């Protein structure tokens, strides 16, 4: 469903993504993990066609993102970590506009939006009367997720999707992802929250300094690297060891 071969991106002298190769089959939720600056967001931006790769290819359901961007974009939905929206539009205006860009008529979009509204327990009056600039972070995130799923994409790419969501909404959203995967959707889930990734994802891919370090099921990877938890595996593979000792020493210095 997603096929990435040798994907590379440079920013000046810095290599953000270095010959990344990854296959994500249909019906699978893959967690994309990595410390800050590992290249996760850049990878997602290249897969979504927002950034032009310097080398390599990305195929979405066999459609090349670089040579057939519009066709590929129709197949996917993306939740960016910024949660950016047009803040001068109401939630409903924004969602109808996004729907129209995917060729969804208003008559079809409205009931779908209502379904999301019910699911996320969003107030209809808020959606129609308040401008997005006045929404809370969580409400805005719900609108962004709705905008990504409105056209029922085959591939869903999520960059820190739970950021801002309350606990109830987060639980509901995780269940929704699992259902979507069972229905055959391909999902890439990029996050720093390891326990959520461990619980939701079938496989994980850990990146560091633009390269794919490991890829597999959490259980297999933990077994293979002798780690008890995904967190332990992550800190071991990304070279950030001794964090607890450092934190303890820092806190003691701060309080002394």
């Amino acid at each position, binding site marked *: 469903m997603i096929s990435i071969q040798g994907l590379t991106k440079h920013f000046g002298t810095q290599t953000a993504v270095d010959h990344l190769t990854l296959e994500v089959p249909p019906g699978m939720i893959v967690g994309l993990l990595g410390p800050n600056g590992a290249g996760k967001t850049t990878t997602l931006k290249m897969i979504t066609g927002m950034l*032009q790769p310097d080398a390599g290819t990305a195929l979405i359901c066999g459609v090349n993102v670089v040579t057939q961007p519009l066709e590929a974009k129709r197949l996917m939905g993306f939740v960016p970590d910024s949660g*950016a929206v047009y803040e001068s539009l109401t939630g409903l205006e924004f969602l109808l506009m996004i729907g129209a860009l995917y060729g969804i008529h208003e008559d079809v979009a409205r009931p779908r939006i209502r379904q999301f509204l019910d699911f996320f327990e969003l107030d209809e009056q808020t959606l129609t009367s308040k401008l997005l600039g006045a929404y809370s972070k969580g409400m805005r995130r719900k609108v962004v997720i709705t905008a990504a799923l409105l056209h029922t994409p085959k591939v869903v790419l999520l960059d820190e999707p739970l950021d801002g969501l309350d606990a109830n909404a987060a639980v509901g959203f995780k269940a929704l992802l699992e259902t979507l995967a069972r229905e055959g959707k391909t999902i890439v889930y990029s996050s720093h929250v390891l326990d959520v990734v461990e619980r939701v994802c079938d496989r994980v891919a850990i990146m560091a300094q633009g390269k794919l370090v490991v890829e597999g099921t959490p259980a297999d990877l933990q077994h293979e690297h002798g780690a008890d938890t995904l967190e332990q595996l992550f800190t071991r593979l990304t070279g950030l060891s001794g964090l607890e000792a450092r934190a303890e020493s820092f806190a003691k210095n701060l309080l002394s």
Partner: protein
Amino acid sequence: MSTAVVPPPDKVLCALFWKLLFRGRVAQQMGAQKTGRQIGLGITLLIYALIGNIPTAFAVNADSFVFASVLHGFTFSFASLTLASNAGTMLFMKEEAEILLHRPVTPHQMLRAKCAVLAGFALLLALALNLAGLIAGLFTKGATWRFIPAHLLSMALLMLFSAASIVLVYNACLKWFGRERFDNLLASLQSLLAILMILSGQIMPRMLGLDTFKHLENGGVWLLALPPVWFGALDALIGGTSFNSSTLWPPAALGLLATGLTSWLALEKLGSAYGQGLMNLNESSGTVKDSKKPRGRWLDALVKLPPLSWWLRDPVERHAFKLTAAYLMRDREVKLRLYPGIAPMLIMPIFMTFTGGRGGKSAFDATTMLQGFATCFLGMVPMQAMMFLGCSEHWRASAFFHTAPLPHWTPLFHGSRKAVLACLTFPVLILQTAILCGMQRSPAPLTLSLPAVLFLPAFSLVTGVIQQWLPLSKPSEEVKNTASGCLMMAGTMAAAGIVGGLASWMWHIGYFWPFLVIEAVVMFGASFLMKHLMRDTPWVAMKE
């Protein structure tokens, strides 16, 4: 997917950008918001319609070609100026890449839609500006009833040319400059465009004088460099003129050619750079500029030195000063909105000097009159700056002001106000006075700038009297709420005009120094009163 007819993406994008251009988010209730916006737009159109009466004075005894060129000159400067100040923020919204670039729309489609909306907006302003001129044009030499459709057509072409030129300049810079330099370049470009449009649109025809148009018939090919002349020639060819039509064909053809070529270059040839530019802007949003040197050291040193250290004794004021100064120098949004708005205020009086000298007035009269005029414009600088600096895309960070144990908001206001005075208003005054002294070859402008030195600090207090003012504390869109903004600016300009006019008159009749003493007393009293009023305005909690 639905089989029902869905508007094509181009139309959806046009509707989106049109809505974004006209809508702010002052109120949380959309109904109230829409009303505010319509009043704001209505006032803007009314002001444009009133300004449009000025060129009708040229209609008497003028040929239709000359009159149409003057009208286009006005349109080019005023409508295009508004266009230039809106274009940067519309074309390069920082987060837009993350909203639209992963959707099934191409950067070309986005650019075309934005250009169409910009041209449409400019056309709306141009229509208001040309309303009186359209009627007056019927009474010019050689004009027939066809003058009206001809002028409407040429006006539409002129606005398309303006919008395409602006987009072309931005796209060319995107293509040829890296992302690190583009952000800063954008603000400079917008200011430069604003100045250029004033120069080529209004000031140049003024400098030339109406008789100069007759040179076109005598081979004055340099006139062909002026876009208003191209479109004026088109008017004359369709609507009738007393000029020899063979001399008008070259400028008219040049106008059509320039419009077509500029549009093609902006939208098609260089349009491919647009998507990359949006993405670059998004990528650089958090990092700004990769520098290893510590920032703001000179500002730190400056506020510790007299006279700033005496002026900024309150630590909260000092930090608000530093915050505002940093935003004035570093923030892309402030630079994009503020400097293009202020550039014409600096440039207009200077070019008025240039043109005024030809009017046959004595040097003395010209200087004093000009100084009064310059004063009107300078009065708006602190007002406009404070209006812009009250809003920012980082407005949510103002929560820190609300959570900090501050007894009142006024130290934050005064710190920012002093930054506006020290970093912007007084440097503009000094620069303008120095240029005027040089141009007049007289120290008189230096003395005549003293009334401004006295009233500018007082004027900078006005925004704090109206309501609680915190730096960078409101969403950026609120600055677009032109209804209150227009009224405040008009009031300020009138007050500054009165002071400037009185100063000029007092200079003329020999009572300048006593006037200055009286002005000092009045301004000191007004400042004291305004500060007192501010102290009585309590903290208002954040709305969200």
